[in-house]
């Protein structure tokens, strides 16, 4: 792999850009791998990268039904933050945030991580009490989070309407300055390039159709649209389709898959300096480097794999955006899409072993998986390599729904879905 640098850009500028090589190879599958990862999104590709980099396991294939990052990695609003309430959540999201901070250098790929700040608007007494609780919990845990008065919030985001007559009055805000955004495609591509460079096979357009098991019940490989591929270990990280894949090994998960929508506006000059989320009226917004407003809406109420979602959901979000930021009322929306999120009953992720030997699962990231990408991938690689969870992910096991040790982030999420 040729390193990307300012010198490489200068060299290629002289040569008419004819020397850039493919970022990753697309090999034919081998007969057998040590590890097969199902799902070529950020979590799966990242896990492959960390398996190769930190655990020396390079006989790895990432199998993807469509194209890299074409699922939820490319369908989210790219918000990164770690201001969760419970220790288990703070552990993993803060671990992730720390990895985000050095990810571009680590991968030699500009993932455009931008710690521009994530602000959560408080509209009522309940919000204020809930956010204060979060702020105190975070600060005790060494995670930055601070309370802003309405005027301080407006100083940070000048286009915010804090007037007393506003439809959704603002009585303060919580701000995590280290939170921000990153470029979603670059995360998938950067991990794929770095993993491929270390010998990982990235196999696209290859659908997993079955999981084959040996006489002792352990997995032996996957049936795919490119034939049978053997594997000593199988790790599933297929976001909305985790239930579908795991059902092939007769494992039932506590998940339901629902569409979550987002949309972007026409591009504009830089106007919006950070990420703003509003829990109570359900809207979140940031501006991409291209200038588009990136707006996230809510989930639909029913199970669906349709990748679309109902119009009333985004209408509701845009109503709220227009009230909070009156100057955006005449902005045109350009594109809208849905991603299929896999949600757990306690709204915390599951990462751990399954009842089937050598079958691992990374699922249930629900509506918040993008921010967890590096941390989740890093800890998932540890789980696959060692066969037991890293201590930072020890609480995310699948059996917590039997033992009752739930991580009840549902009531504590930034936006209620």
């Amino acid at each position, binding site marked *: 792999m040729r390193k990307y640098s300012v010198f490489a850009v200068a060299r290629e500028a002289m040569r008419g850009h004819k020397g850039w090589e493919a970022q990753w190879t697309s090999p034919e599958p081998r007969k057998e791998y040590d590890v097969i990862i199902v799902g070529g999104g950020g979590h799966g590709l990242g896990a492959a990268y960390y398996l190769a980099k930190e655990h020396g396991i390079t006989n790895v294939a990432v199998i993807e039904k469509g194209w890299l990052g074409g699922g939820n990695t490319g369908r989210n609003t790219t918000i990164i933050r770690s201001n969760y309430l419970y220790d288990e959540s703070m552990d993993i999201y803060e671990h992730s945030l720390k990895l985000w901070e050095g990810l571009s250098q680590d991968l030699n790929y500009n993932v455009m991580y931008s710690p521009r700040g994530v602000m959560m608007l408080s509209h009522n007494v309940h919000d204020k009490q809930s956010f204060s609780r979060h702020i105190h919990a975070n600060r005790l845990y060494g995670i930055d989070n601070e309370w802003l008065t309405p005027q301080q919030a407006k100083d940070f985001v000048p286009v915010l309407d804090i007037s007393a007559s506003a439809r959704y009055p603002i009585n303060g805000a919580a701000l995590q300055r280290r939170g921000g955004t990153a470029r979603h495609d670059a995360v998938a591509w950067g991990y794929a390039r770095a993993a491929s460079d270390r010998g990982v096979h990235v196999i696209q357009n290859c659908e997993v159709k079955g999981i084959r098991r040996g006489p002792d019940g352990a997995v032996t490989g996957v049936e795919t649209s490119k034939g049978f591929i053997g594997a000593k270990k199988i790790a599933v990280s297929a976001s909305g389709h985790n239930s579908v894949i795991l059902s092939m090994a007769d494992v039932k998960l506590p998940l*339901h898959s629902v569409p979550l929508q987002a949309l972007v506006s026409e591009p504009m000059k830089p106007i919006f300096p950070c990420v703003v989320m509003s829990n109570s009226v359900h809207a979140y917004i940031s501006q991409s480097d291209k200038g588009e407003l990136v707006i996230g809406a809510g989930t639909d109420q*029913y199970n669906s794999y349709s990748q679309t979602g109902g119009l009333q959901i985004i209408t509701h979000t845009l109503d709220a955006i227009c009230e909070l930021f009156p100057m955006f009322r005449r902005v045109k929306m350009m594109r809208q899409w849905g991603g299929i999120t896999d949600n757990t009953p306690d709204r915390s992720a599951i990462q751990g072993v399954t009842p089937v030997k050598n079958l691992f699962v990374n699922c249930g990231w629900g509506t918040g998986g993008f921010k967890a990408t590096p941390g989740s991938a890093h800890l998932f690689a540890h789980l696959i390599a060692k066969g037991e969870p890293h201590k930072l992910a020890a609480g995310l096991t699948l059996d917590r729904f*039997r033992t009752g040790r739930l991580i009840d982030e549902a009531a504590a999420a930034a936006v209620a879905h």
Partner: protein
Amino acid sequence: MLLIYCPYCEEERSELEFRHGGDAHIARPTNIADVTDEAFEEYFFLRDNPKGLIFERWRHIHGCGRFFNAARDTVSDKFYLTYKAGEPKPVIPGVSPATEKTVETYEATEGTAK
């Protein structure tokens, strides 16, 4: 937005009038305090989450207020049919195998209440 046929009101109404109620035909164990952790997990948390045919509950919360069941495709979001609470799980021709035994829920007892 979905258009949903309420089997009690006997007309199609917009999704805004309805609240989704999770999977249908899940029977609560009558001896809930005595069941094993595994059985409770199975009843309370584990779901098929199917890609394709799903049987689910809906409540016409801004209408008649009644719970009813629906058979729907989770890829196209198309409803095959809706039916009253307490009625057995229907067979969808060409889609669902007629193998599973029908599970009656507590709603069966209030199926005809007005």
